[in-house]
């Protein structure tokens, strides 16, 4: 064991333990850390917005524009002032009963993001995914790969690949049908919807597995920090 001598490692370790103490139960030490975190994070965000957005995209261009205006030239830079005024109107939301000026900038932002979202979803998800789903039922390359595969395991996996195209098509159509609300799920329609649910469940299982992976990684990292960086234990 080789305890760290770095004061900053100690700060980080104590805060880590403070947050972890919540696993035992909610307690004042956890609460202290939690509020400290929100405070530090808020201050951090504000500073980054100032340094990385306000200064380069607003103050500097407007400053340049004002200088140019002093020389008698109107530049595009000064149009940024409109953004500033609209942006400040957002703050009217903080005053109860006098929130309406914030609707102007909200309108602009919602409009801009809606317009972008329409195009993004239409080209990126709708059309592209549709196009990629137009596949032949029989995948010839998978068939020949199945013929070439040797050994039980490889043969099995190659066989699964032969089934890929039909399963993809059935899965896609039945799941799409499950989310079709104009028909009661009875009889044949109910059976198709049921197949759709099965596909949904498998995909949720896949997501579950991946989420477990993500969370375990995060825990692992904190343990490595505590055991390795702080306590100085001999870990891998």
């Amino acid at each position, binding site marked *: 064991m080789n305890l760290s001598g770095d004061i900053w490692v100690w700060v980080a370790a104590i805060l880590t333990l403070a*947050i972890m103490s919540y696993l035992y139960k909610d307690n004042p030490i956890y609460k202290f850390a939690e509020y400290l975190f929100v405070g530090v994070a808020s201050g951090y965000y504000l500073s980054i917005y100032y340094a990385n957005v306000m200064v380069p995209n607003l103050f500097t261009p407007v400053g340049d524009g004002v200088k140019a205006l002093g020389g008698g030239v109107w530049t595009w830079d000064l149009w940024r002032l409109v953004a500033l005024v609209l942006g400040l109107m957002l703050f009217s939301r903080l005053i109860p009963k006098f929130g309406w000026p914030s609707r102007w900038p909200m309108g602009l932002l919602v*409009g801009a993001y809606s317009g972008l979202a329409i195009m993004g979803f239409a080209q990126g998800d709708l059309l592209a995914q549709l196009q990629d789903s137009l596949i032949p039922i029989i995948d010839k390359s998978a068939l020949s790969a199945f013929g070439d595969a040797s050994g039980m395991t490889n043969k099995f996996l190659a066989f699964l690949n032969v089934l890929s195209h039909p399963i993809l098509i059935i899965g896609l159509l039945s799941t799409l049908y499950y*989310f079709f609300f104009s028909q009661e799920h009875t009889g044949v329609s109910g059976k198709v919807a049921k197949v759709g649910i099965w596909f949904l469940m498998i*995909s949720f299982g896949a997501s579950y597995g991946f989420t477990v992976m993500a969370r375990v990684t995060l825990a692992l990292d904190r343990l490595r920090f505590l055991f390795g960086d702080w306590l100085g234990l001999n870990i891998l």
Partner: protein
Amino acid sequence: MLKREVPLLITILVGWFMVIEYFFPGAEKWSSELQNWAIIMTALASVLGVANVARINMLKISRKQKDWGYSVVLMAGMILMVVLGTLFPMIKSIFGIESSWTLAGMELSGVTSGTWFTQFYDSMFVPMQGTMFALLAFYIASAAFRSFRIRSVDATLLAVAAIIVMIGRVPIGDVMWSGMSGLSDWIMNVPNLAAKRAILIGAALGAISTGLKVIMGIERNFLGGD
């Protein structure tokens, strides 16, 4: 008029402009300026969020509400970071100060590496946010043990897929059976993909219709009541 029609008109005009710009390259110069505005305004909206946190906690402190002591901690953390990251750089740029202000070998003003600001980020922000999300590993374990109940065919499919993927994505899977990673990869690429694609297409239709409603002025909930 100012409260309803103008914001609606702004939404409709800006929204359509962003759509049209995709097809008509001539609109590019104008849309650029609009997007620059949006960047500044979104940043200000985020500042509004921070201001709101500050406001709520200041109220809590001044009214000595329950747990106001923690609000003092929160405000102290926030002010510390704002002074280092915003106030000092502001003072420097207003008075044109070029020299560095150091304390214990680290720069006091600014947000880049080698500053006190980044040191606090590294030893407070990083471990605390990291640990908060790390707690989820433990919750997922207890959820797996105490509430993951395989009561139906549906739940069985979910559980089997989850288990294959969990084993197949880490090296131990192939140690157990050499086809495990291949099988989990197949699940990801075929049945999982089929369902995810259907969800994606459905969600895209939903998002497009919501967007169209907004820029056609049919959906106005986001503007709030009267």
